């Protein structure tokens, strides 16, 4: 029976007329729908929502939930995603009625605590990053990228320049070019050098007075610090271009080095990575941006102000305008604020230290199998080249699926594009040595199987609720809603 039940939706359960909530009280007269809406507005055919009791709904979702891997279950080495432990107190605090019941249109004097929290968090992020002004409004990293590029665009325009190009390394995350395009820029790709870092000569050759910004991830997506960052920034600045840091990998730097000190003009944070707000199966995130002071006037409105002990809101005319209907994902800010308080200066420094040590330790344990394309040491993550798997006609995706069989998640795969058959591993600082050792053992075992019994790997997974999922069929059939 469990097998038959796999994938059965709510729409295939229940019975007509059932509902999971009790009838509401009518302490006022009930005019009836006909009296409320003229016929032309009234819905004729009810939406086919499930008809289940509360118990059935709960059972459905509880059982669904257990079909997920998640951090509280086991190791989650997704590179670039910083799957670290999310402290439970954040969940409690983000559920305080004093935060959850606030309305975005309330008068400022009734939301002083919320504004204070945002004001303080902006400054904390500023101190951590070495940036001079911060906006918390973007709802995720990509949203931050886009917002930051709009800020850069506004700055250029304010100087009478309508620059058209944004330079982006070939190792960049897909959101970088996508954000640049939506911000109205043309993307120009900068090559990576033989060492996996930006090819500075290629960069220089592409810099011009039409370049609005260079977007660079640091540490970059192969886990390497951009050692020539000063030279890069200087070159960009010399043609009037801004340097943007994709801060998705900030976890590696906290307490070790600050983007602002490195020369960057603007960056985004992923609170759902570095500041451990939970990923929620794909969000909500929070993607604040930090800027040097020359860009500050252009940050999204409203801005939180603080005068004479009172917090307020301001909408400067220089601002690019709002990028979110309200203030962004406020409850994620609550969690990040609590995290910074828990860490303090000492704890913050430990984050980067342990993240870097864990990554290099883990690579040390497994490098007898697959190897990286670019030499380390690495920062918080490393990227294996999966090409040797081809010898037994396997792909990185096969290897990944086989890892799942051992109760761990797979690394990020096929990203970045500059490493063939890439397998990107980020252990994070919250995993113990014991867990790293266990993962290394699993990894080496799968490596052994890849050579000695490749079929086991090719047909993985074997131990999960499902065998290999047919994504080709999914893309062909495109069944995107339940066929009633």
């Amino acid at each position, binding site marked *: 029976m469990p097998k038959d039940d796999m994938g059965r939706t709510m729409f295939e359960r229940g019975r007509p007329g059932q509902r999971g909530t009790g009838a509401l009280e009518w302490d*006022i007269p009930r005019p009836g729908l006909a009296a409320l809406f003229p016929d032309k507005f009234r819905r004729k055919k009810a939406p086919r929502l499930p008809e289940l009791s509360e118990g059935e*709904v709960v059972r459905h979702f509880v059982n669904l939930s257990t*079909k997920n891997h998640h951090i509280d279950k086991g190791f989650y080495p997704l590179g670039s995603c910083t799957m670290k432990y999310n402290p439970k107190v954040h969940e409690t605090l983000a559920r305080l009625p004093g935060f959850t019941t606030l309305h975005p249109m309330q008068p400022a004097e009734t939301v002083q605590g919320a504004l204070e929290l945002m004001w303080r968090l902006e400054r904390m992020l500023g101190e951590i990053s070495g940036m001079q002004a911060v906006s918390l409004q973007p709802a995720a990293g990509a949203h931050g990228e886009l917002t930051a590029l709009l800020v850069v665009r506004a700055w250029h325009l304010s100087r009478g320049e309508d620059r058209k190009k944004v330079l982006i390394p070939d190792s960049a995350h897909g959101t970088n070019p996508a954000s640049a395009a939506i911000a109205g820029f043309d993307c120009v790709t900068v090559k990576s050098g033989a060492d996996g870092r930006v090819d500075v000569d290629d960069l220089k050759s592409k810099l011009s007075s039409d370049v609005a910004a260079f977007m660079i991830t640091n540490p970059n997506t192969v886990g390497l610090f951009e050692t020539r960052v000063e030279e890069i920034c200087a070159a960009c600045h010399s043609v009037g271009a801004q340097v943007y840091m994709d801060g998705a990998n900030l976890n590696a730097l906290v307490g070790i080095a600050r983007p602002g000190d490195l020369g960057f003009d603007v960056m985004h944070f992923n609170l759902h990575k570095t500041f451990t707000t939970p990923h929620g199966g*794909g*969000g909500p995130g929070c993607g604040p941006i930090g800027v040097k002071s020359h860009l500050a006037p252009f940050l999204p409105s409203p801005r939180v102000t603080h005068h004479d002990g009172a917090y307020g809101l301001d909408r400067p005319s220089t601002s690019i305008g709002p990028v979110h209907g309200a203030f962004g994902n406020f409850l994620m800010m609550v969690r990040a604020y609590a995290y910074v308080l828990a860490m303090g200066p000492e704890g913050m420094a430990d984050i980067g230290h342990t993240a870097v040590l864990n990554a290099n*330790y883990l690579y040390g344990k497994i490098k007898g199998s697959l190897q990286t394309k670019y030499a380390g040491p690495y920062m918080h993550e490393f990227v294996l080249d999966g090409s040797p798997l081809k010898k037994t006609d396997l792909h990185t995706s096969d290897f990944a699926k086989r890892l799942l069989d051992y109760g761990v998640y797979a690394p990020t795969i096929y990203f970045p594009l500059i490493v063939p058959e890439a397998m990107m591993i980020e252990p994070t600082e919250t995993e113990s040595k014991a867990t790293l050792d266990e993962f290394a053992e699993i990894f080496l075992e799968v490596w052994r199987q890849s050579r000695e019994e490749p079929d086991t790997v090719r047909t993985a997974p074997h131990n999960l609720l499902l065998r290999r999922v047919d994504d080709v069929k999914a893309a062909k059939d495109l069944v995107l809603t339940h066929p009633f």
Partner: protein
Amino acid sequence: MFAVAGVSKFEDLVEAIPAHLRLARPLDLPHSQSEMALSRELRHLAEKNRGMSELTSFLGLGWTKHFIPAAVDSIVSRSEFTTAYTPYQAEASQGSLQQIFEYQTMVAEITGMEISNASLYDGATSLVEGMIMATACSKGRKGFAIASNVNPRWREVAQTYAGSNGWTFHDVGWEAGTGARDRAALAKVLAGHAGKLAAVVVQTPNVFGLLEDLSGLADLAHQAGAVLLVAADPLACAIAEPPGSFGADIVVGEMLGLGIPTSLGGPGLGYLTTKKAHLRQMPGRVVGRTVDAEGTRAYCLTAQTREQHIRREKATSNICSNQGLMTVAASVYLALQGPQGLAEVAEQCASRLAYVRDGLQGAKIRPLFSGTPFQEEAFQLPPGSRARVEAACKTARLLPGIWLSDLLPGVPTESLLVCTSETHSRQDLDLLVSILSSAGGAA
């Protein structure tokens, strides 16, 4: 561990960072606090706010307080949903995948559309994504015939994106009597910008809380080669004919309220539904149904060639992380309510507004417009009464609504936009009516 890492000390690991660029001092942050101490501090901040459990609030504008059954958070808070990443590895992520598939189905059903994506940041950005999508559906056109009675907070966000995208907005005003979009004005825009319009953009209920009559609108848009983009309140759709029934091409909006607390407006949940024919232009993630190698039903992310990680600068959107966990909240909420429960909540909201309207009638306070409201409506108070009303509300710890003129040009300064929901008791409504009647009644 250093030995295995191939170094003898930590500094060797970060030698790639030029020494002078490293931070030589501890960060200037508050000292590390115990869970007990930081909980105290956060509670203190929370108590500095006056939440809607302390104030009687009639604020709406798309962020509406509804009662959330306890089962919602009991599911949302399961770490299986909370601490998972985007479901990349389908075999170990069926929980989130099936949940999103079910969410997609329910949002499509509610809006009367064929398909839905897996979420967008919020209502305002869903409108923007809908507009970007419309430009793609219309092969790059950049003009928008947009109703002036679309939520101004959303329009502002669209404005932020307009410059870099080269968009032009052709405003379509509202009718003085009904508050609905001005049909004549729309006809004029359509005629005046033939061949340039990507979309006709309307919202229902509009910013005045009034249902827009969508009949015939799709044809008008299509005749102009544009798509019909409708921002719609999902709760209203429980009892009002949904945009899909009127041939809308893209429907967007905000799901906050349906299982999601107002939380200063975020995290909310932007949705986008459309026709299957427009799938290739749709932004964001989408989950499809398939089978595994043994033919067992399974779900996975699909149609990914639209997305940034594959198509990069040619992607339909830059969105990556979206509002995943909020779709869990909305899914549980909608599943608990079912069609009956959802309709009852909607009817409660509308009936409570009618109760307020009836009450104000006695004090000769009339709606600003004659249109059909759902749960929100603008009431016209006598000139000069605003200060009196505000003072009386302050004393009563009541937020009576939003003064429309703070939001929108061209409306009288004493128009108050009042939003009711099932959470307002009769006493709450009576209090509002009595304050508006005495402080705001005809002097």
